[in-house]
């Protein structure tokens, strides 16, 4: 039976080093939940605490209402998929998938039926009697997935399962994982550092940094309304401008300001702010309005042209020399060359305003 997972104020330390200072989150039954963050942020550590391979220094982890802190890994009824697959090299594909069933009360006939069905679900029934050595990375991954799901675990835990696959296979496998997870309807905790993978596969994402959760939201919310500049820059790319806010008016330069019409919280203090604008969310102004920028470099990418743009006023970009702007080929009238001057406007609906410390000022964004 699938369960909900409740992590309450957990702490993880290795000797004197604190990896996770105090972390809480709730994962709903049947949800596909992703832990996303740069390497070393503690996401794998947290996953392994849920699995039972890491000790919990303080706090509680519950499956539904049951506290599992003291339950050893082999009694938690989890299914885990490892980064290196961890397919048993001495067992055939079928024996690998069967392996977990021998520790559960499953009749032989039922076990065989379940293994067969599972091999079909992950489309490796043709390789059932092969040893793992003779399988490709993607096939081994499917064996690992089948082996984890066939035992009907409470939760499915996946630790960067796709990071060892090539790009094409990764895209194919993530669709497969998503489909299988939805069919089986099992609570899944998925760890990755690949933001694109996280965005396309998850019901909700927790963005982590240095053991602290920055934001937990649905993928589109995380992308469009990041809670701080870290999330804004880590998920996709954000150009960060030094701006100033007075009331609902956001000023980029002496001659360019936009009216945010209630998009910013009404209690947002006036003064210096940081504004994040994504490369694809600028609009070219044919009328010469907005920010004037000079093309430093243009890179043709097929569907997009990526420009590196510099501004005359260096104070506009305190942390970077240039910004990135993506021009959609589908709507482009012309492609600019280095040295050309273009004018950019921003869409108030799309931009994000942060305090100088980097916290979001947008209304409706919960920290």
């Amino acid at each position, binding site marked *: 039976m699938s369960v909900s997972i409740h992590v309450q104020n957990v702490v993880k330390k290795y000797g004197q080093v604190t990896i996770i200072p105090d972390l809480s989150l709730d994962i709903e039954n049947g949800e596909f939940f992703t832990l996303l963050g740069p390497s070393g942020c503690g996401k794998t550590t947290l996953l392994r605490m849920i*699995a*039972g*391979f890491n000790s919990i220094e303080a706090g509680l982890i519950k499956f539904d209402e049951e506290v599992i802190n003291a339950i*050893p*890994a*082999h*009694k*938690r*009824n*989890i*299914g*885990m998929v*490892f*980064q*290196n697959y*961890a397919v*048993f*090299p*001495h*067992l055939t594909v079928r024996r690998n998938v069967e*392996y*977990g069933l021998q*520790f*559960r009360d499953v009749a032989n006939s039922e076990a065989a039926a379940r293994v067969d069905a599972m091999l079909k679900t992950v489309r490796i029934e043709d390789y059932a009697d092969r*040893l*793992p*050595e003779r399988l490709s990375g993607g096939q081994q991954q499917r064996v*690992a997935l089948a*082996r*984890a799901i066939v*035992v009907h675990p409470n939760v499915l*835990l996946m630790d960067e399962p796709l990071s060892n696959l090539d790009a094409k296979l990764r895209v194919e496998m993530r669709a497969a994982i998503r489909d299988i997870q939805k069919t089986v309807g099992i609570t899944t905790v998925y760890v990755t550092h690949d933001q694109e993978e996280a965005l396309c596969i998850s019901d909700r994402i927790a963005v982590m940094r240095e053991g602290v959760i920055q934001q937990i939201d649905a993928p589109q919310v995380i992308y469009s309304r990041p809670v701080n500049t870290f999330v804004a820059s880590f998920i996709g790319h954000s150009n960060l401008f030094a701006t100033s806010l007075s009331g609902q008016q956001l000023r980029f330069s002496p001659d360019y300001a936009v009216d945010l019409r209630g998009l910013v919280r009404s209690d947002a203090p006036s003064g210096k702010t940081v504004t994040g604008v994504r490369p694809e969310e600028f609009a070219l102004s044919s009328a010469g309005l907005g920010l004037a920028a000079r093309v430093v470099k243009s890179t043709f990418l097929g569907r997009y042209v990526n420009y590196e743009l510099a501004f005359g006023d260096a104070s506009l970009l305190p942390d970077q020399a240039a910004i990135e702007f993506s021009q959609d080929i589908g709507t482009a009238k012309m492609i600019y060359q280095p040295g050309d001057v273009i004018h950019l406007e921003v869409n108030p609906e799309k931009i994000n305003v942060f305090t100088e410390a980097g916290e979001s000022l947008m209304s409706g964004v919960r920290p």
Partner: protein
Amino acid sequence: MKLAASPRDFWFWTTLCIAALFIVFLVYPLFSLFASSFVDAESGAFTWSHYAAFFRKKYYYRALLNSMSVTACVTVLAVLIGAPIAYLTSAFHIRGKKLLDTLIIISMLSPPFIGAYSWILLAGRSGLITTFFAEQLGIRTPTIYGFSGILLVLTLKLYPFVYLYVSGALKSIDISLSEAAESLGCDPLRKVFTIILPLITPTVLAGALLVFMNALADFGTPMLIGEGFVVMPVLIYSEFVSEMGGQANFAAALAAIMVVITCLIFLGQKYVVNKKSFTMSALRPMKPSQLPAVQNTLAHVFIYGLVFLSIVPQITVVYTSFMKTRGSMFVPGFSLESYATIFDKLGAAITNTYVFGLVAILIIIVLGMFIAYLSTRRRNLITSIIDTFTMFPYIIPGSVLGITLLLAFNKPPMVLSGTAAIIVLAFVVRRLPYTLRSSAAILYQISPSIEEASISLGCPPMRTFFKVTAVMMLPGVMAGAILSWITVINELSASVILYTGSTRTMSVSIYTEVIRASYGTAAALSSILTLTTVISLMIFFKLTGSKELSL
């Protein structure tokens, strides 16, 4: 053949030279061994009579049965001791693991017969333990001579092979395999039997084979402690030495039987291991965890008890070397007279050991590097055959090799018997594999494109080998060379057949001193040998920067 098509470059000539060396010093002697086993000593005609005699007389075939039974028991016991120690020290925190490792390696690499001789001193007829039990407690302890003595000594001497092999294999098991089993609901004990054990089975078999071959071939131990329990190497030796001449052909037949048996066992093991093996590499090796108090104590008692037992011979030897002696008896009090005696009377044995050893090592290094290079980088029919032949020393027992060389080189055109050259030759043939293996291992890690870069820049192949490849190989070569060196200076079973008065080495002298019951001088010589071994090991660890030994 590929070689014929390739240009006659430096490597072509190197291959030819090495092939010639192998034909003269390995193929031809083996051939003469088999040939002379079918020759009637008187008439020189072809005969089956030597083989017939072996299988007809109980005294002869009994030796083969004895060899098989004691070797099988040693192998089983060595696995039952070595594998659990390896698992316990890899999976759990064991205090002083580095010390344990070092002691285990020392006990493994010290001269093979020191164990037998020390256990005789301790538990023999007038041994320390025997006398203590008899005089103080009135208890007669079980005899150390015969089957049980050989079993005790060889097991304690050989379980380290299994220990080192299995420890290595456990390091190559990624911890995620173990975690995967647990995540699927497997408890820790069943995990050992369903995952860990099957994964290390090929390695256990390889270690068991090494133990089996060593136990089967060992000459010193059964000679000293076996007494009435005659095994094959002892039979071969006594048939060959006792009545030189008439019995040489019979001894050759015995040796040929040994070679055939060891070959069959070796091939059988290869077949099984190839069927069962799979490649593994661990990104995250197993990390030791803490055992609960009771199990923890039991594990420590088990491990320390066994390691103590296996290091007892070394302690005994060093201790007794400083004792006063009168004739063959030890008397109370300490002195350096045993050392004075050996420097006075047996000084030549010490210099012989180092001189022969160093010459052999130089040859081993050069051959090892070239053969490793040829068999990894210039693979063709001839180099493959050479590579296969380098496996022979694993298969041919030392005493058999001794007889083989003696039969081949005691008559014109090449008379080497009685010279230092034949002893060096035996050293090289027996101990080349260590250097060869570690040279090949490091070559696999050096990208061929480095050589190609050098050649593309205008450096000819031969100079490239010496300027680039050889230099990069050096750490691996030296590590192997030290192992070769340690095993060279401790070599007994071939040199005991080949030595003469002027070419005796330390291990031969120790053996003859023990036979003469001159225990004090034997202990002093053994201590020098053990000290050399320990110093060489320390250099090895310093050089490789690790506490690991791959054999």
